């Protein structure tokens, strides 16, 4: 079991983070991330799960200050990232790193692996210049690659090997927190399992915290301590891994779970032959009157959030139908 003890100051603290993309001609601005809040403790993984366009990547980018936010606060190691100076933020980047989805486009094709891994070391002056080569070799070993391959170029590696290099590059500066944005979506299922195992073992060895972004609830089952399900820019359900899988409480979470193929031909055949529940979650947010839990938020002024267990909450927004 996971000991998710609520520490006084979590490693990462996100409160009411919002991102708005400005209006394009004749259209309304897009609220891509809408008041998202969560904590991530040391050596913990929060999985952020949702479909394309739900705002999960934008959330990750806004936390890393790669995307301007329109409101809210992000604190890493107690520092308010939005208020740091340019230099201050650059120093903080040592503590937070990014692993991108596509290992085919996130490595410079004309830089050798040694150059790719040495660059962050030089920028952040993590190790003395004479130890850079040794550190690069150490990083290769850390992610399970042969240090003898450092003079090769990205195209000489398979997709899984490239993703190992991307991970090594993120870990070069010994970060505390890594945003993994769909780190295995571009890989074969068999390679996915290896990369997930690598990320888990690195977490144990180095005490890393992850924000693990994915669209597949089955995949994150193996890595996440806590799960946040995102829909249309909001977190609609959040809880411990066992809570969300054992007692999925938001209809959208249930729809996501239902979409996962069952590796059993008899059950899966039956599932595919039934017509899918065509649930529409859009535009059905009750403006007034009782919510799905029978509470009138407009009147009570409370947040649209309902605890269903200790540390397990669910939003009453985006329920396909009002309470019966």
């Amino acid at each position, binding site marked *: 079991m*996971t000991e998710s003890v609520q520490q006084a100051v979590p490693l990462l603290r996100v409160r009411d983070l919002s991102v708005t993309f400005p209006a394009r001609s004749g259209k309304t601005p897009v609220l891509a991330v809408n008041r998202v809040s969560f904590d991530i403790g040391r*050596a913990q*993984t929060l999985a952020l799960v949702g*479909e*394309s*366009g739900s705002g999960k990547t934008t959330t990750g980018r806004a936390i890393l200050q790669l995307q301007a936010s329109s409101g809210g606060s992000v604190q890493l190691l107690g520092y308010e990232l939005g208020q740091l100076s340019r230099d201050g933020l650059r120093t903080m980047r040592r503590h937070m790193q990014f692993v991108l989805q596509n290992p085919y486009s996130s490595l410079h094709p004309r830089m050798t692996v040694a150059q790719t891994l040495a660059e962050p070391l030089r920028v952040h002056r993590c190790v003395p210049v004479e130890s850079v080569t040794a550190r690069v070799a150490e990083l290769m070993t850390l992610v399970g690659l042969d240090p003898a391959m450092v003079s090769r170029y990205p195209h000489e590696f*398979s*997709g899984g090997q490239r993703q190992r290099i991307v991970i090594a590059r993120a870990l070069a500066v010994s970060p505390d927190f890594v945003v993994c944005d769909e780190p295995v979506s571009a890989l*074969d*299922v*068999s*390679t*996915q*399992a290896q990369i*997930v195992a690598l990320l*888990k073992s690195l*977490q*144990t060895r180095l005490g890393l915290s992850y924000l693990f972004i994915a*669209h*597949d*609830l*089955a*995949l994150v*089952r*193996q*890595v996440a*301590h806590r799960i946040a399900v995102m829909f249309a820019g909001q977190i609609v359900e959040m809880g411990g*891994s*066992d809570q969300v*899988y054992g007692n999925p409480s938001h209809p959208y979470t249930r*729809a*996501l*779970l*239902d*979409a*996962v*193929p*069952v*590796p*059993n*031909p*008899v*059950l*899966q*055949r*039956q*599932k*595919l*032959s039934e*017509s*899918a529940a065509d649930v529409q979650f859009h535009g059905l947010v009750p403006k007034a009157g009782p919510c799905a839990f029978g509470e009138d938020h407009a009147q009570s002024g409370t947040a649209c959030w309902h605890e269903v267990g200790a540390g397990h909450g669910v939003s009453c927004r985006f329920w396909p139908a009002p309470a019966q």
Partner: protein
Amino acid sequence: MMGAPVALLQVRGLTAQFNRGDAASQVVKGISFDIGAGESVGFVGESGCGKSVTARALMRLAPEGSSLAWGGTVLFKGQDLLQVNERVMQDIRGRRIAMVFQDPMSSLNPVLTVGAQIEDVVRRHTGASASRARKRAVELLDLVGIRDAARRADDYPHQFSGGMRQRVLIAIAVSCQPDLLIADEPTTALDVTVQAQILRLLMRLRRELGMALMLITHDFGVIAGMVDRVHVMLDGRIVETGSVDALFANPQQAYTQALLAAVPRLDVAGKLA
């Protein structure tokens, strides 16, 4: 035609070889299989095992600029597709055998409306008039579950989501009611929720149109409910063949077992530190 009943497709000793200068690499090393009319067959293997090149052999499609040489026989309704002339092949390709590719983002022409792209295929293969082709295009969009099809036919690909684009590609593929639909990783680029919709769509179309389906994937989870028989490929060879139920219940080869074990499961929690 011979008197004995023949499968829709009979592949015997298929090889594929890329020739680069004096170096040649064989990516398909002599594989044989049958696909019966209306049957659904899965091919599972990792990147580079030769499953996509096998599928392309049935359409006689070589990647542009490659020197891909095929060997063996591919008998489709008694005709060897590797021997017939290009004219005959053009009639079979897209009409009798159609294909859906992995990436719905790059398989559509960005400067033509979705309707125009379907009409193109319909007119080419059936010689229908412009207005008839238009009607058929709307019908097809409706068939693959695109709402408000008549209006959406005038939209461009960028106005469609990934799942919708894959539906458009499926509409194009089934436009001539092919005998065999080849789906090469049709859901790999899509979200799980959209994947479930596309798999259901393929199942429904197969039933309604009586097509045979060749489903290629690296994910055993996708195969489970979709096919009758499975071929597991490794390094250009078929290493295990069986009914999907037998293969899931009792995989014989260590490689098949490893692929099955890699499928993420909802009912198995990982061990967390």
